[in-house]
């Protein structure tokens, strides 16, 4: 064996990891999840009072809470308010945003209002909304709409503005009527932006609904959490948090899937706002 062969056979300084258990993403994720749960359990066990939520406690009460009729009613109240508010915001926000994106005057008239209300934390106007709508479900719906509307409008506006000029020129050279230009060119072209806006809006809408329930004390997941944590039933309260997380993640996944499935030409980071 020559020296050169020996050198070639010698181990390189950095050994590439061999394919094995630890290279399967699934195993890694499972292990990380287990580690997080164990760490949570251990920390609560060691440092916190007995009533604090911990994985074993949540697992014990989970089935009972989820089948409780009051819990289901609360979940339904919150989620239907979020969906209703989102639908209203999508309808109004798309219309406002596309008008802003395509018509300069509308954009200049609304610009400062939309931008500054988008930057306003929805919590800050809660007292105002309760003054207007009363301490009831309407105020919650209004909070959800306020939380969701502006991010949709701003993204729809960006989308409508970024419609490639060539598309519009083609539409014009075929003498397309304005409504066909709107529904067949502008709207589809701004969909990726719109979806990014809806994704952002969904998260904000969820926060809005929960925060409104804290403030107004009307039945819903937020109030369920508030009530149970006040009576030191943290495990029960945390089940509601899990539902909220599941809805948030589920919606994120749904929008991501819709974008990949129906708008594969949209580049992800282009529409991130």
């Amino acid at each position, binding site marked *: 064996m020559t020296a050169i062969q020996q050198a070639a056979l010698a181990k390189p300084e950095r050994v590439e990891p061999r394919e094995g258990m*630890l290279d399967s*993403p699934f195993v*890694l*994720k499972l*292990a*990380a*999840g287990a580690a*997080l749960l164990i760490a949570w359990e251990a920390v609560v066990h060691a440092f*916190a009072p007995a009533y*604090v*939520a911990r994985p074993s406690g949540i697992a014990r009460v989970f089935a009972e809470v989820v089948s409780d009729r009051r819990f289901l009613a609360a979940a339904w109240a919150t989620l239907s308010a979020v969906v209703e508010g989102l639908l209203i915001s999508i309808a109004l926000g798309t219309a406002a945003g596309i008008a802003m994106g395509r018509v300069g*005057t509308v954009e*200049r*008239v*609304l*610009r*400062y*209002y939309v*931008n*500054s*209300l*988008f*930057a*306003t*934390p*929805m*919590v*800050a*106007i*809660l*007292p*105002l909304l309760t*003054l*207007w709508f009363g301490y009831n479900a309407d105020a919650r719906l209004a909070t959800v709409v306020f939380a969701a509307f502006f991010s949709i409008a701003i993204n729809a506006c960006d989308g409508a503005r970024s419609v490639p000029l060539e598309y519009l020129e083609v539409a014009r050279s075929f003498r397309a009527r304005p409504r066909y230009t709107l529904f067949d060119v502008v709207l589809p072209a701004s969909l990726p932006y719109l979806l990014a806006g809806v994704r952002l809006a969904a*998260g904000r809408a*969820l*926060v809005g609904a*929960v*925060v409104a329930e*804290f*403030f107004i004390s009307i039945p819903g*997941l*937020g109030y369920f*959490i*508030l009530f149970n*944590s*006040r009576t030191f039933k*943290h495990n029960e*309260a*945390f089940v*509601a*948090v899990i539902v*909220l*997380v599941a809805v*948030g*993640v589920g919606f*994120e996944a749904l929008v991501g899937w819709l974008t990949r499935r129906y708008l594969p030409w949209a*580049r992800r*980071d282009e529409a*991130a706002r």
Partner: protein
Amino acid sequence: MARRTRWLRHATVATSLALGAVVWEVAGHLTTGAFWAPLSATLGSAAELARGGVLLQQGASSLRLYVTGLLLAIAVGAPLGLLLARLPRLRVAFEDYIMMLYATPMVALIPFILSLLGFGFTPKALVVFLFAVFPVLYNTVEGARSIRPELVEVARAFRSNEWELWRDVMIPYTLPFTMTGIRQAIARGLVGMVAAEFFLSPSGLGQMIMMGSQNFDTAGMLAAILVIVLIGVALMDFGRYLENRFAAWRGYTR
């Protein structure tokens, strides 16, 4: 001609703002005081609060809370994200959980924090921190995920040591993504700040809004909201500036 259209544009914006002010004023006079207060009353109330030093004091209290939480979030989120950038296995293991926490409505945790930590500055700063940390972490990890392995290989081929690898590849590559995260954190942190001031011990601008609404002092409430809106707009612009400042670094690798 061009000058004329530009002038017309400014005129549209100015007219719209003036119209908004008029509508605000008139609406205040047409409705009862419990619904809405005229712009003049709101500004008067704001001036009075500013003269008495209340506004400055409460604003400073809010800002201290906000800045503490936000800086902590950046100090934890960005290095942790970078670390996950360097350790791909850990990144794969944890990225789904980070995404999950990123999508979690953190307000839902406020009642737990209240009953565990009670009142005071720490639990409120914790709320701001929780609102702000996951956008930073999530976006940094997203950036880390998109580092091209070739870049690391080239650096290795040129015998970069660990420190040089971080300085020349990892940090410049992930920083623009971190900045996107910081922009989101700036906005979310503000929501967290007001939520903490509402639902934990009342303080700062949140307390001013609450007191205004409880005393039916609508002008005072609107003045406090207006201050928060202005702070929000300024912070939003600052965040966007930060993001654009570093966006050029993203280069052609998208």
